[in-house]
């Protein structure tokens, strides 16, 4: 597995489910992210914090998943929150005019302090 392959790992901090994402999110693997998030919501998670700290880059396929899942969460009284956006990943959010579309906190610690 190379260093840009998509990695996902979930953990908990109180009632918050944290999904740490690493590598690239693109057309080939965005469906894996969608499946993982749908699985977490199906298992009853209400707040999912997506930590992008290790994400190298993401394409519009990833943004599509994030928009769909965020909308879906709101309809089900759940929420998706983002943190750890830095470097190229942050620039891509800015380029797509999408930073304002999501709830974005700084570091994971900042986010957990506010949730």
């Amino acid at each position: 597995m190379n260093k840009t392959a998509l990695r996902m790992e979930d953990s908990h901090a109180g009632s918050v489910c944290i999904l740490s994402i690493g590598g690239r999110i693109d057309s080939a693997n965005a469906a894996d992210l969608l499946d993982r998030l749908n699985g977490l919501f199906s298992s009853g998670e209400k707040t999912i914090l997506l930590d992008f700290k290790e994400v190298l880059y993401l394409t519009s396929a990833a943004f599509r998943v994030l928009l769909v899942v965020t909308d879906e969460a709101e309809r089900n009284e759940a929420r998706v929150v983002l943190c750890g956006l830095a470097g190229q990943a942050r620039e891509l959010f800015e380029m797509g005019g999408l930073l304002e579309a999501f709830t974005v906190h700084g570091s994971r610690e900042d986010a957990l302090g506010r949730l």
Partner: protein
Amino acid sequence: MPLPQTTHLIIRNDVTELPALTSAMERVAAEHGMPEKSLFQLQVALDEVVSNVIKYAWPEGGTHEIEIHIAARHDGVEVEIIDDGRMFDPHDAPQRDKPQAAQRPRPGGLGLQMTKQLVDRIGYTRLGNRNHTTLTKLCALGPPGSGRTTT
């Protein structure tokens, strides 16, 4: 081998084939010392363009081939994507929908809007029944073997 140096590959019109392209780009970048940021930006643009071809070029479905040439030059990398699907000039793509006030933006048109910002040039020609789309990312490349991963 001196620059320019070209890598060719053919993939089928299926998103599961995209990792082959991603890996080929990573190999070219490592071999020629392409800066990581330039590589990532070109990877995002390529994913947008090739996934669009996969999704929209053949409305009738079926298995088709997409031919890709990656040319490493002294002043950057140019990737040519060739398909025999329906005509599509990325310059004619509709503008992205303006988000309504207090509404989450829609993803339609996002990929091409980002592509235009990520590469230095987008070229298009229709030759015979084939689309030739080129993406050019300018950056300084070293001689083959100068990539960091080979040290």
